[in-house]
């Protein structure tokens, strides 16, 4: 009963936070409220009985904050951005548009709630019971969530992994800067005091070890490929805090990510699609565990490389001053 009460209190705080974000004037306030918002949602997921999703949300909110901050920082450093923001903040909102928009959305929300299908309890739970009853025999491992997204619905996970690879390719191709290599070994101008270096040196090995732990027994306790990958990526962020130098090559990391992605496709093809392991008498506990750990490891590596490339891309290259970048124009050919 107490957990339900805790969840409701946190949900109220969650909604209040969303309202703050909508009505915050300065962009930096939006960032901080968004940080608090993600922290609260992560805990609410935990109280709803979803530790995997909670961990994913926590890790993702850290990276989302980094991406947003790098984007905002350029806006403010130009000075004009700040003046424009002050001016627009000072200018009174035209209340007519505000009230009209509010009325429209309130009508939509009322309509939505009016038509919510009122089935009292959970209509059908056979599928859930089937999953819980059978997943240990079919896919192995103790964690039902890992069994589903690595065993039953591995087809979804393939396309989701593909989307992450495409996102990394897109970030590099669509960005304003055509170059992919920062002058290796160049020190980042982000100041870090001695204390930061000292503290991060202690935390870094712990996170790396923790990431390996998450990957290795993802199928037994809460955790798994994504979270291990996120932990590795957080390790790289801490490493950047310690050394503060852009020395890891982005090009190689992208190539490795694609290689790992090819393995992510090939492994389920032999393990699940053709039913090789499970239906020619080899469906032993050992094979299942090998498959799950291998898949977790591969997915972890891919997510780690993906976020590594995104992080370094944002920290090193998206923050370059404009003058350095010369975009050579193609000839105006058309095919």
């Amino acid at each position, binding site marked *: 009963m107490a957990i339900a009460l805790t969840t409701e209190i946190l949900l109220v705080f969650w909604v209040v936070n969303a309202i703050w974000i909508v009505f915050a004037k300065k962009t930096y306030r939006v960032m901080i409220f968004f940080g608090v918002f993600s922290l609260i949602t992560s805990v609410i997921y935990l109280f709803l009985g979803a530790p995997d999703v909670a961990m994913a949300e926590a890790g993702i909110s850290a990276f989302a904050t980094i991406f947003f901050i790098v984007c905002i920082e350029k806006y403010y450093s130009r000075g004009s951005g700040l003046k424009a923001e002050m001016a627009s903040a000072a200018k009174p909102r035209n209340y007519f548009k505000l009230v009209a928009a509010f009325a*429209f*959305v309130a009508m*939509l929300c009322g*309509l*939505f709630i*009016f*038509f*919510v*299908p*009122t*089935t009292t309890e*959970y*209509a*059908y*739970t*056979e*599928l*859930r019971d*089937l999953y819980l009853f059978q997943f240990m025999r*079919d896919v192995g491992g103790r964690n039902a969530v890992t069994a589903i997204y690595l*065993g*039953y*619905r*591995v*087809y*979804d996970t*393939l*396309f989701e992994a*593909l*989307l992450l*690879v*495409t*996102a990394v*390719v*897109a970030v590099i*191709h*669509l960005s304003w800067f*055509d170059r992919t290599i920062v002058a290796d070994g160049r020190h980042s101008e982000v100041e870090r005091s001695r204390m930061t270096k000292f503290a991060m040196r202690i935390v870094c090995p712990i996170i790396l070890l923790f990431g390996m732990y998450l990957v290795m027994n993802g199928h037994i306790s809460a955790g798994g490929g994504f979270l291990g990958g996120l932990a590795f990526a957080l390790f790289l962020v801490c490493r950047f805090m310690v050394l503060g130098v852009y020395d890891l090559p982005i090009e190689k990391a992208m*190539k490795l990510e*694609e*290689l790992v*992605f*090819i393995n992510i*496709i*090939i492994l389920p*093809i032999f393990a*699940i*699609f*053709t*039913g090789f392991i*499970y*239906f020619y008498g080899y469906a032993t506990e050992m094979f299942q565990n090998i498959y799950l750990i291998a898949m977790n490891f591969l997915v972890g590596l891919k997510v780690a490389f993906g976020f590594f490339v995104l992080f370094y891309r944002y920290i090193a290259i998206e923050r370059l001053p404009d003058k350095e970048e010369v*975009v050579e*124009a*193609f*000839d*105006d*050919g*058309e*095919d």
Partner: protein
Amino acid sequence: MPPQMLTFFVIVPVLIAVFLYVFFTLKIARVIAIAVQAAFMVPAAWLLFATQESEIAVTVGDYEGFLGIILRADLLAAVFVCLTVFIFLVVGIYTVQTPYDRTKRLYLFLIFLLEGALIGLFLTRDFFNIFVLVEVSTVVVTILLMYDRERRNLFAGMTFLMVNIIVMQLYLFGLGYIYMLTGVMDMEAASAVLYTMDDRSLALPYALIMTSIASKCSLLPMLTWLPKVNSLTGSRFTIAAIMSGLHIKAGVYLFIRFQDVFGGMGTDFFLVIGIITAVAGVIMALSQTDVRLLLAYSTIAQVGLIITGLSLGDGYSRVGSLFHIVNHSLFKVALFLCASQITYLYHTKDIRKIRGALRQTPLIAAANIMAILGIIGAPLFNGSISKYFLMSGATGATEWIIILINLGTILAFVKYAAIFFGKPLGKVRTEGGDEPDFNRRAVVLGLGIICLALGIGGAQAMDFLFDAPVSLSFWSYLEKVGIFAASVAIGILIYRYAISKREFLPKLNGLSLSFQQICVSIGAFFAVLVIYIGVF
């Protein structure tokens, strides 16, 4: 081939995409790409024959019941898969000669990914899988639309991406309610449960999902930004051809699937929406001067027509609109590829500046005219067969409106056809680079001939593709020919006096919604749909 092969239909293009991107140099990669595309036609054809009688279903990983993801290939899915593979082959052959600096390995990577995602979308019957595949295809299309660095339309691309994310959140919300009501993620099982429920409790999930699918096919309110994005963003003609030819068709395919799942709840609502979209598409097409925008808005008009045909509820009109989807993909791709070559030769994309193309490039102009005859429904071409059956279900008012829409299409393409006659104005550029070589002319001519062939053998094609034994009564077809001839005459008259002199509705030319207005229009569409379903 064991049914397990269905998964390889989707996995093979993705694997090839990544292999080409990682391992091979550009020269070898392009050769392999064309070889694979051609080889891929064989399994697609096999699928078409295999699904003639029965449907092939396979659970990925052979888990029993609805635990795993189930891929089903019935005849309709097979037709769409064949269409996708054929069009990617045509576009592949078309771009085989482009100079090396323009088609890097990333371009091949994205083209194969899009092909894999679209084929996956046509085969899968799992709700969440559709969400993942639509997201993948949206991201890939966003990159392709902004592929050329210097002619990149960043703002339209970002708006396209943001609107698509919001729309997919609506879809996920609706999916949540379906999972709550039916407790299962597969379409067949869900539709069995949903039939037993009354409209009132299904109003919300239906409205949420249908809003997202309507914006995928860019029906009325969300109309103005899709053509602006898929043609104006400096993207290449080939990408615009794939967008209009296939990407919108995926939206229409989802529309068909979800109408079956929900047992056709809002058909007459979508009848009205389809008609309005068609009329708006035609008017906007008439007011454009840029070639690509004219073709894009005419795609919207034809999609509106297809949605009307589908929601007429009559067996003939449904088969007619399915055949119209296939035809429309063919002649739209032909139109875009011809336009690409002609605009390259005349060095401008403005219709008003191109004149006398027939004398200048007879071969391309001939293919282009065949495609135009196809789209306006000339007697011997495939357009007439599909429009004939599409209209057969319409009665009274809707019939006249559809004739009006056809007249509008004819008007738009009469305006477009003006580029063939008169004496050539601008200096024609024929020197090196991307000039339309033998390959491109052959491709375009081939498409034109296919349009003609499908026109002549229409009834047999429809029987084979959609196993709908259709009888083409000679007299009613003759009557349709009469109507067609009359409307062409009217079209030329109107064009001669009304349109060619002064600009037709110039202000409609640059109409584009801001991001906030698009959100408001999505919300309004959702509200109207919910009220319609819930109350009536």
